[in-house]
């Protein structure tokens, strides 16, 4: 009943003409920018966030969520038409999507992708609506030690699931923690790591780090790769976009598979939509009657990963909105935007800002419908963006990055930092360091430091407070298990291999 009341309140907010307009604008912009090769949801939101600075919190957040969902929808277009994944989670879509396009079924692949995204996206939002209130009421028992433990648990999942090397992911996370320490200490006003620069006293803005690491580094990687891609013919009519009945029938299980896997994986911090899409594709292939055809252009191979990619968005919002813990780079940017508007995500968000919370959830339902309506008939129009040559596209991305970074505080030093973080992101990619842990470390660093220092102040310096309280002890125990498991399993594997010798 509480959920229905809240949702009713949310729809009354989301259906206000201005909020409806922001939802539409967000979905539209998100889809357009999401279509651009190399720009995933995180970079898209980071680039477009400055547009919402002057808006009221509800409208701004509704628009950002529209951008988030729109970018996910748009990302599949380049995978299918160009074999260029717009983001990591669209990599799997390339496998069968591009093959379908080569087989003359580009329209059907785009249509299946839109339908799967709609079904799974709606499932993810319904699950978010049902699960958010009980999780938030449980989290009301949390104090500083529990929050610290929760952040440790979330970050440990991020580093374990976020990259191929646990040590590299941990190191990236620690660099993020260091970057967030630059500036004035919140408790004592002590300047830390400012190197005598007055500019650094107020710290480094999150937007500069995010745009540098995602957008600038992304363009540099594309320039380094120097790939030339010849687009396939873009479907030009609605009829060309519609999949056949047989294709839709073949995708029945894939829709359900993508929805459930995507949501469950999305709830886990750090797992991310790329893991969700890989798992959904793997399940689909393993239960298929014709697994050998996967990779040659089967519609299920598009529906499962695309569904998982979108259901993941609803799942990722569960820890963000109820616990204030972002699960990945994109939700970390959403968190920083919420904080910017004075909204504090967490268990009290539903009580302190019910309009924002339920308005956001309701706008997701509306946004999902808007996206289906936009995507099916307008994909041919959106796809014209793919005709923009890269020699125009790259300067536009650089230009948007410069505008976004400069507008943070109208200071030229922001641009120097932007260039610096672009290089950091590029070097990290070349040295196989994941960037998501750095971003999460940067976003959570302040809150984590505050939680641990408040906990130790509460206990007068006794660190056992962190393990004496049951909830925090359990979470820290899980975190230790998660971090210990990969090296222990690797050691066991080595021992097993060594036995025959």
């Amino acid at each position, binding site marked *: 009943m509480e959920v229905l009341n809240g949702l009713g309140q949310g729809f009354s907010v989301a259906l206000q003409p201005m909020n409806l307009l922001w939802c539409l604008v967000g979905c539209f912009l998100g889809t357009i920018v999401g279509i651009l090769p190399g720009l995933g949801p995180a970079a898209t939101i980071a680039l477009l966030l400055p547009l919402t600075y002057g808006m009221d919190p509800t409208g701004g957040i509704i628009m950002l969520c529209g951008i988030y969902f729109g970018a996910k929808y748009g990302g599949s277009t380049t995978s299918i038409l160009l074999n260029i994944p717009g983001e990591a989670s669209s990599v799997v879509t390339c496998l069968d999507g591009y093959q379908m396009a080569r087989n003359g079924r580009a329209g059907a692949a785009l249509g299946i992708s839109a339908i799967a995204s709609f079904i799974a996206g709606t499932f993810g939002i319904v699950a978010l609506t049902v699960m958010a209130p009980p999780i938030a009421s449980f989290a009301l028992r949390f104090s500083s030690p529990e929050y610290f433990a929760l952040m440790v648990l979330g970050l440990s999942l991020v580093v374990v699931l976020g990259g191929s090397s646990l040590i590299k992911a941990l190191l990236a996370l620690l660099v993020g923690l260091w970057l967030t320490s630059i500036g004035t200490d919140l408790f004592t006003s002590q300047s830390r*790591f400012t190197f005598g620069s007055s500019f650094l006293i107020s710290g480094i803005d999150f937007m500069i780090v995010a745009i540098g690491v995602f957008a600038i580094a992304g363009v540099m990687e594309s320039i380094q790769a120097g790939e030339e891609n010849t687009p396939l013919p873009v479907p030009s009519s609605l009829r060309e976009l519609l999949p056949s009945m047989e294709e839709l029938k073949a995708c029945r299980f894939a829709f359900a598979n993508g929805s459930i896997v995507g949501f469950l994986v999305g709830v886990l911090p750090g797992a991310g939509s790329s893991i969700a899409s890989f798992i959904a594709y793997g399940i689909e292939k393993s239960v298929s009657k014709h697994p050998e055809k996967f990779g040659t252009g089967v519609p299920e191979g598009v529906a499962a990963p695309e569904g998982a990619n979108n259901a993941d968005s609803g799942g990722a919002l569960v820890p963000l909105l109820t616990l204030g813990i972002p699960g990945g780079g994109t939700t970390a940017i959403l968190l920083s935007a919420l904080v910017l508007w004075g909204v504090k995500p967490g268990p009290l968000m539903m009580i302190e800002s019910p309009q924002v919370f339920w308005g956001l959830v309701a706008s997701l339902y509306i946004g999902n419908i808007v996206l289906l309506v936009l995507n099916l008939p307008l994909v041919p129009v959106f796809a014209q963006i793919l005709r923009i040559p890269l020699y125009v596209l790259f*300067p536009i991305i650089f230009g948007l990055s*410069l*505008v976004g970074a400069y507008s943070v505080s109208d200071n030229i030093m922001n641009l120097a930092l932007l260039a610096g973080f672009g290089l950091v992101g590029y070097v990290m990619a070349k040295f196989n360091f994941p960037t998501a842990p750095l971003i999460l470390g940067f976003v959570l660093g302040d809150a984590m430091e505050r939680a641990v220092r408040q906990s130790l102040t509460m206990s007068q310096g006794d660190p056992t407070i962190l393990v004496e309280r049951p909830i925090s002890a359990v979470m820290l125990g899980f975190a230790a298990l998660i971090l210990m498991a990969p090296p222990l399993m690797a050691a066991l594997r080595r021992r097993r291999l060594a036995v025959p010798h």
Partner: protein
Amino acid sequence: MASRRFDKDVLAGLALATLGSFIALRATSWDLMGEDGPGPGFFPLGYGVLMLALSLVLTLRALLRPSIHTLETGGSAGHMRAILTWAVFAASALAMQMTGFVLGFALLTMFIVAYVFRRGWRSMVLVGFGCSAGFWLVFTQLLGVELPAGPWGF
């Protein structure tokens, strides 16, 4: 052993070990624990030490593993292209204080068109000034966003 000097993980490990040492040393110059609880040096000391330890593990592991994977050499032209583009991006971003956004961005765009994509001077000028004018129109004129202004006001 000579090729190990260029191993990615060794280089990264040594760089991060230096950073971790710097963070830990700097943190010890601030209060670690006071009467009111942990001081400003407490948290940085923790992650600085952890960074130092983990980066040493990364370096040692790279030195001890049998197969050596070195810095890519095949894509060196691509790396050069990317790094040079970045250098021009950084230089034009900093120069915007003197040149203003419009001219600085136009020069950056022209460099990308000419150097990265090897287009002719006509495309270079057209895209350079077209993009720049588009940004000025949309952001400065329509949205009222402040952008670096040169001596001529834009």
